[in-house]
């Protein structure tokens, strides 16, 4: 009785804040408390410990995604795993932590958690509504100060329970680091199998933590260099399906694809503009490669942006869509250039030793990531004016950086000398917390999409 009325109080609070009409609704983040001493700068050297006990499932019921009590534990596992993988936090739980009661969700036993010891505590609940959807409550507490710092509610279909976990982890990460979220996002990449001389390359997609993996193409023709559209509805990629390298836009829901431009010339290195309205691509005409742009709607004529006799290839829009960073060997070797989105004012920005390739503009606009080739391939960053060059990795062949939506983590792929085996890795902007992303088979050409709405 007491527990039920408490649950109703919680539920009504959450229903107020989530808006039940939305598939994935979220409260606005609380106004930052200026007296809050725990809001610190992004600093991976200062890891903090967070306890994440299993979320409470009052009156557990079965859902198409499993029993809600099991979901409560699985959601806590994903929150814990996301936060740990960020490299900023050490996490405990849900394994090894005691179960909490529903009453504790909003009234934590701070003295108990101080003794673990932990600095931060994440608690929550999972409720199954009459419509079959899950309501997930997520609360963050500062154990030392004994106060609540964040609370959020999410309403999701049971099959999307991981998204509620990612959203909760994102809110905690943002609250504690001051950075923008990134866990609730997806990655397109190329899954690789087979021997080096006869590699099978398939287009595949997965969540940012490797979950919900799905192959899109069957491997009969080589697929390369995918890019998720900003709304995740389609993927640009290169396929040899007609025997020649051509860029297609694949509609994920419809399972259909079309050429981005009708041309007998090879097209490659596709990219989206940040608003998803324009596609950037490279095309070779009589052996000379230049960069073009075309409307993503499929009706418009291509606009040629570069004219040098050298190879101009790739390209990445600045977040405001006004500039493009690209790669050219017009000086004699691969270097990084910036131009206006209409092709004007082309200027070189890389002047270090070696060659520079695959530039990608950070979603935060402050940096450009690239592959630096000087014997080995390493991933690095520089400012858009070319200053502040910094190498983040050191291996035989690290290639093709792609930015996390918050511009704080970079993914790339690593090729092994000899075997040619590939794997997807990520590293943060400080060059620390380098780790391999789990994929079912070898992986290359990762492309990270934005945070899901």
């Amino acid at each position, binding site marked *: 009785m007491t527990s039920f009325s408490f649950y109703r109080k919680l539920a009504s609070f959450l229903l107020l804040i989530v808006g039940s009409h939305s598939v994935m609704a979220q409260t606005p983040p609380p106004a930052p408390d200026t007296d809050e001493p725990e809001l610190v700068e992004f600093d991976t050297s200062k890891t903090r410990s967070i306890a994440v006990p299993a979320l409470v499932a009052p009156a557990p019921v079965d859902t198409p995604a499993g029993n809600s009590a099991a979901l409560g534990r699985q959601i806590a596992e994903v929150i814990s795993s996301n936060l740990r993988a960020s490299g900023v936090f050490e996490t405990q739980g849900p394994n090894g932590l005691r179960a909490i009661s529903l009453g504790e969700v909003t009234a934590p036993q701070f003295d108990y958690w101080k003794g673990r010891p932990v600095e931060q505590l994440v608690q929550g609940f999972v409720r199954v509504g009459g419509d079959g959807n899950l309501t997930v409550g997520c609360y963050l507490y500062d154990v030392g100060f004994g106060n609540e710092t964040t609370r959020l509610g999410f309403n999701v279909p049971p099959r999307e329970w991981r998204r509620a976990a990612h959203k909760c982890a994102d809110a905690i990460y943002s609250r504690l680091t001051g950075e923008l979220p990134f866990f609730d996002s997806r990655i397109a990449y190329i899954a690789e199998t087979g021997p080096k001389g006869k590699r099978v390359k398939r287009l595949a997609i997965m969540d940012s933590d490797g979950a919900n993996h799905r192959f899109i193409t069957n491997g009969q023709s080589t697929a390369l260099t995918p890019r998720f559209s900003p709304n995740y509805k389609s993927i640009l990629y290169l396929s040899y399906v007609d025997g020649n*390298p051509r860029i297609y836009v694949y509609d994920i829901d419809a399972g259909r694809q079309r050429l981005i431009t009708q041309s007998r010339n090879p097209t490659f290195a596709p990219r989206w503009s940040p608003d998803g309205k324009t596609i950037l691509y490279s095309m070779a005409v009589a052996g000379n*490669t230049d960069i073009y742009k075309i409307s993503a709607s499929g009706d418009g004529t291509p606009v040629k942006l570069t004219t040098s006799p050298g190879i101009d290839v790739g390209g990445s829009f600045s977040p405001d869509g006004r500039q493009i960073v690209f790669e050219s060997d017009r000086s004699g070797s691969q270097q990084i250039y910036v131009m206006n989105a209409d092709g004007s004012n082309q200027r070189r920005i890389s002047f270090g030793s070696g060659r520079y390739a695959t530039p990608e503009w950070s979603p935060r606009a402050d940096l450009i990531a690239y592959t630096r080739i000087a014997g080995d391939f390493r991933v690095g960053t520089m400012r858009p004016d070319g200053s502040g060059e910094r190498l983040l990795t050191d291996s035989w062949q690290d290639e093709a950086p792609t930015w996390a939506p918050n511009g704080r983590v970079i993914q790339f792929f690593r090729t092994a000398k000899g075997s040619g085996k590939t794997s997807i890795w990520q590293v943060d902007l400080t060059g620390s917390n380098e780790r391999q992303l789990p994929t079912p088979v070898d992986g290359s050409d990762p492309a990270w999409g934005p945070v899901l709405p």
Partner: protein
Amino acid sequence: MKTNTIKMAAILLASTALVAGCGKKKVEELPPAAEGTNYGPPPAAPIVEANPIVPGSQEDFLQQVGQFGDRILFETDRFNVDAEDQATLQRQAQWLARYPNARITVEGHADERGTRDYNLALGERRANAAKNYLTSIGVDASRIETVSYGKERPSALGSDEQAWAQNRRAVTVTIK
């Protein structure tokens, strides 16, 4: 000088591989042909029968242009056709002159020590460099297709200078 040595070494290695490959292939192919004739009268001209190469075919092309005469090799990031490459392409052009209906695809490749997109562009350059030389010595451009495989289809599988030298190539393949 140094690059020439590497290039020569690569061709020698490649030639050895081709010889080994051919020997193996003949052993596999010949016995079934012999079995197929075991109930008929002995062939009147066994030497001609033993040669399965159809004039104007890919096999004929490979035999006529000589060992590794189907490809030219390039230095790192380069796509120029040097005197040695010209001699190779001239032999290809002679074969094409003999079979005016034959058409070819020139496949451009790069080694693994380049980034993926750039290598696709580089493969295009190399395939077109070979095509341009062939057309300059009289082969009709309409008979030549080009395709770039970038670093996607290495010929030599090692991660060393010799393998890379073999993989920076433009290979001529006849279209059936």
